């Protein structure tokens, strides 16, 4: 009888173990996080076979490229492909659809140093690293935002493509919604969208008006910048930070807005 009870206990234990695993399997995966950067200085020395930013800039479209840089922002992850902004001491990179597991994507925190091997590409004026692979390296650097307000509308602006940039003292100008009303922002470029879609808003530096974007994959509904832009009023004076994305011209993707 005692042996029978032991066997029963063993079977009970096995079954309990199995059920526990079932529940664990169904409970979802805990995200594996990476360490948060402290924002040190960017390495100026490049590793073996790694291009400087100048060499990357000089490379032709479709050339193979290898760069080292520091993550400054993550835009999206889908089907093991990550799109991120990265920057080193000399320039910035838009890394488009690089191979990346979901676990590694979680470790791509701001400041994390990475090495990217891929091909230089250009899509509607945006310089990218396409089909890259990502390796993690030791190092941490948070780039400061460069104030490019004075460069808006000039040929010099493109030199800062993909960089973390800032715009100071700009005025929110009206956009026209589908009903013909003047509003401070639109969902999608023409107002055809709804909450959760990209936000478009116009700002002026006093000389010209520019269209800025809150890219929903980069900073979607619920983020501080998304909600802040929804709260803008025409005539507000704002300071902004973002990444200098390019689409047939400068198309800044704004990541923070402060109403002055």
């Amino acid at each position: 009888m005692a042996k029978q009870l032991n066997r029963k206990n063993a079977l009970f234990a096995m079954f309990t173990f199995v059920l526990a695993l079932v529940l664990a399997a169904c409970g979802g995966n805990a995200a594996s996080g990476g360490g948060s950067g402290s924002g040190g200085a960017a390495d100026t020395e490049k590793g073996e076979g790694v291009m400087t930013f100048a060499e990357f800039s000089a490379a032709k479209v479709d050339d193979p490229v290898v760069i080292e840089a520091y993550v400054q922002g993550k835009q999206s992850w889908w089907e093991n492909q990550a799109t991120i902004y990265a920057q080193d001491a000399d320039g910035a990179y838009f890394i488009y659809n690089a191979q990346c597991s979901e676990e590694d994507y979680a470790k791509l925190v701001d400041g994390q140093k990475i090495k990217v091997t891929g091909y230089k590409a250009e899509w509607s004026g945006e310089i990218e690293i396409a089909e890259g692979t990502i390796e993690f390296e030791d190092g941490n650097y948070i780039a400061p935002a460069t104030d490019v307000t004075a460069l808006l509308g000039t040929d010099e602006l493109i030199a800062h493509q993909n960089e973390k940039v800032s715009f100071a003292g700009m005025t929110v100008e009206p956009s026209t919604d589908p009903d013909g009303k003047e509003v401070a922002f639109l969902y999608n470029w023409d107002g055809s969208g709804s909450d959760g879609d990209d936000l478009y808003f116009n700002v002026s530096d006093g000389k010209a008006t520019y269209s800025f974007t809150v890219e929903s994959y980069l900073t979607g509904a619920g983020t501080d910048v998304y909600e802040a832009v929804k709260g803008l009023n025409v005539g507000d004076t704002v300071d902004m930070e973002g990444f200098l994305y390019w689409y047939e011209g400068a198309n800044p993707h704004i990541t923070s807005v402060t109403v002055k």
Partner: protein
Amino acid sequence: MNRKSHFWTKGTDPFVRLALTLVIAAMTCTALLTGCHGSQGLPAFEVPEQWDSSKEYEITFWAKNDTNKTQTKIYEQAIADFEALYPNVHVNMRLYTDYGKIYNDVITNIATNTTPNVCITYPDHIATYMTGSNVVVPLDGLFADAKYGLGGSELAFDGPTEAEIVPQFLSECVLGDAHYAIPYMRSTEICYVNKTYVEALGFTLPDVLTWDFVWEVAEAATAKNADGTYAVNGQQVMIPFIDKSTDNMMIQMLKQRGAGYSTDDGEIQIFNDDTKDILYTVADHAATGAFSTFKISGYPANFLNAGQCIFAIDSSAGATWMGSEAPLVDISPDKLVQFETAVRMVPQYDPEHPQMISQGPSICVFNKADSQEVLASWLFAQYLLTNDVQIAYAQTEGYAPVTTKAQQSDEYQDYLSRAGEDNDAHYPVKIEATQVLMNNAENTFVTPVFNGSTSLRDASGQLIENVAKSVRRKETINDAYLENLFNDVLALYHLDQLGGGVGGGDKDALGPLPTASKALIGVLGVAWVGIIAVAVSDELKKRQS
């Protein structure tokens, strides 16, 4: 758990006990796994005898627009008009600008029984939605219902009869042996041509383009001046031929050649010699810079309008972006170049027997526990086929209405007749693109729909994209390259794992098993080995004693 212990304390035959254990454990695990990774099927929908207008219904409609505010407003107006006719139904719209995003969200929501009620979608996608049990409502019973069906006697609106839906478009919504959707709008691929540059290069634009003509002109346009600019436009950039949708490009080329793509049952036939021949041609012209793609370079419309492209292939539903006078433009005014825009069907191998793809949104209705809620959904879906909605929406782009009732109406005929009166509502490029489709309805085709056909479509475009990119990166395209490419694409899109058939098993439907689940399956195996070993040992000892 207690009941299981109870069975073990009875002096039951150990093999019966083992069998009972197996059954109980299997039922437990199945229930748990089902709870985690899927939902129990709903009962099949049956059309209610009578519409219940006394109860409030809230239905969700996931709509797709082409990032076009006029389309959004038409949806909103349609909802308002419908709610006025059916005051007890409230329609909540969620807007999308990407079919793929709708597809992903529907797949996610099937598992939790939180699908929308009505959804704009592609038949390819519906085939995957049907992986679940009774997820999508078969519509034949609703079509035929005398009261609430197409042209039904108790409808509060003047909808089309079944006979008034263009038969070809309606047949595209048959999956297996039933209709699982109704067509909403139809479009096709169009070649938008810079006729000015074609003639400047010394060619005469034919009414029907052939592939040979397009490649010949495209190559001629790559000639450069001594200063490195292109002779035809004097600019630093010229990509003579850009295709927006390389999956449609490959599909249409194969169809025109009578080559294999897939069977209706989902047998994959795309990896054939015709495909190789097409890819060699693509490689030749990508190498010279005569050809590129949307994914590699950007929107064909932007290059066309900047005088940097001669043949821009895109949907007829993108017509309002095409041409010097296009109402929608995405490049700065200083980059716009003046030229004459010609609208042609996509290039053909046999111009006497043209073939072009039929595409465009359809509408499906999702099943719910309350059949009255499903009926409300059907009434709204059907309302989208009324003339008011069909004609208004078709005019927003190069879409054709899906009903003859709308196509033949005075209002729509008047619209067509006014092509060129202005560059907005009557933008001639848009109306000409629509007429290419309407004049060639009998020359359109669709690809077979099965669970996995979306993957095959993606794979077909990937072949062209990869070859074009490889050539640009100075890789050699030869038989060995193409064999490797075929194998890579086969694996990437799991084409060797497709179950075929509508609603068949598709691993893509729920994605790969999580690691923990794979571990669980392994542990389950070990656990059962242990259970069986204990039971057998117990029985042997019992017999020995």
